[in-house]
């Protein structure tokens, strides 16, 4: 039986060798062209890295000794940042656990709820952090609370989606077994879906610890802003740094 599969007729249906070679060559050329374009588009010049190195060294040198007078304020700001991340993430975690089962195709109670939950998550993901931060800032006033809210929204977008996907990928056997036994939807979720996915859910939220970074970088919220300002002042106090940096870079380009 297997020998009949290797008849010349079957082999003939494949593209002829020269055509395949040409295709491979064209594809390779396209890839090379892409890299060449990117190289020139971004002004890559490795010699700059070497000739300009002393500038980098000088700036780093000027950062020492640090300006200790801003230390306590910086630490205070860092703590607020941490608090913001903690509350924002926890809120997002709770909301995601509620939202994810609605947005998982295999266990959603209703298609309309599915679309609604997906849309909500999509919106939360699309709004940039600084936009939602700005919106909350004008709502709740200038306080780190705005940061908490903005962060929660952003995190829900990502976390709920990851959770929903984890639910969709899970083994439906235990879920079906429990459903057949006449358990309610909520009971199935609490006792079958949740225990199976607890490690995944916890892992994902810990992975999202990068929200700490988001928190410190969300510019319109006072928290992030404060940290950024402190950091900048911390560095800038050392010297008239910024004009120097700009000057150096202009001189470099002129050559």
């Amino acid at each position, binding site marked *: 039986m297997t020998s009949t599969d290797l008849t010349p007729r079957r082999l003939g249906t494949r593209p002829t060798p020269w055509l395949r070679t040409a295709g491979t060559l064209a594809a390779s050329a396209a890839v090379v062209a892409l890299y060449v374009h990117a190289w020139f588009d971004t002004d890559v010049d490795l010699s700059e890295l070497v000739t300009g190195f002393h500038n980098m060294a000088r700036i780093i040198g000027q950062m020492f000794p640090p300006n200790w007078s801003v230390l306590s304020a910086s630490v205070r700001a860092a703590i607020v940042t941490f608090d913001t991340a903690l509350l924002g993430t926890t809120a997002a975690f709770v909301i995601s656990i509620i939202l994810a089962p609605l947005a998982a195709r295999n266990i959603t109670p209703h298609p309309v709820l599915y679309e609604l939950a997906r849309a909500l998550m999509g919106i939360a993901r699309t709004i940039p952090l600084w936009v939602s931060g700005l919106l909350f800032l004008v709502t709740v006033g200038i306080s780190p609370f705005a940061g908490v809210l903005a962060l929660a929204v952003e995190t829900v977008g990502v976390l709920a989606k990851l959770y929903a996907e984890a639910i969709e990928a899970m083994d439906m056997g235990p879920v079906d*077994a429990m459903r057949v036994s006449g358990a309610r939807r909520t009971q199935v979720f609490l006792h079958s879906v949740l225990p199976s996915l607890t490690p995944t859910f916890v892992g994902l939220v810990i992975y999202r610890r990068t929200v700490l970074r988001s928190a410190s970088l969300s510019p319109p919220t006072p928290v992030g802003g404060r940290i950024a300002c402190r950091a900048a002042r911390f560095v800038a106090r050392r010297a008239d740094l910024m004009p120097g940096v700009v000057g150096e870079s202009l001189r470099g380009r002129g050559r």
Partner: protein
Amino acid sequence: MLEITGLRKSFGTREVLAGLDIAVAPGELTVVLGANGSGKSTLLRCAMRLIEPDGGEVSLCGADLRRVRGEQLRLARRQAAMVFQQVLLVRRRSALENVAFGALGELPLYRSLSTRLFPEALRARAYESLERVGLAKFAHQRAGTLSGGQAQRVAVARALCQRARVILADEPVASLDPRAADSVLALLADVAKSENLGVLVVLHQPELARRYADRLVGFFDGRVNFDRAPSQVSDDEVEALYPPDDDEH
């Protein structure tokens, strides 16, 4: 107890169930034999409406399963319990908790928010069910650490704790060694008799089926080929259910 008449289901152009009739009587172990793809698992899933059938009737303890919806479907289903091919316990919960899960459907929601809130009476009942299948000493072990045979027996205990009238088992011994397979089937036959349950088992082992079944049902191409006492089914008839695979390349 469970009567299935004229059940039909197609996936695309492939007709998996072509108008099937099968009935499960109390106190009886009925075994369904059939080749891969003959529609055995689909039958069980369609009967419980885990997959929506295209046509036919399913009556479970007097309830018309095809007509009921939502809350009524949930309550109707409580009369039946399923045991699956792969062991489908919640691995991160104890054997006892898994058995108690059989009764989730009768608990009010607030009592079932956490396994800690389960009523004491339910725990006692779950423990009794575990004792019934001979696994009481594993009550507090995580389900994930049980052997395949033990886990299937826990699944049977869960069905008992659920107080189901019908047990549907989809290849419950597919991944078990011969001794464990034998013990699981013996247990199913035993609970059928002692608790007067209707038990329907899909099986791939004709010898096991002959040893424990009260009735043998042969599936071929989405239809019932025979439905008789094992002593009245010849080896040739069983053999004919498994045609040589003609689409091997």
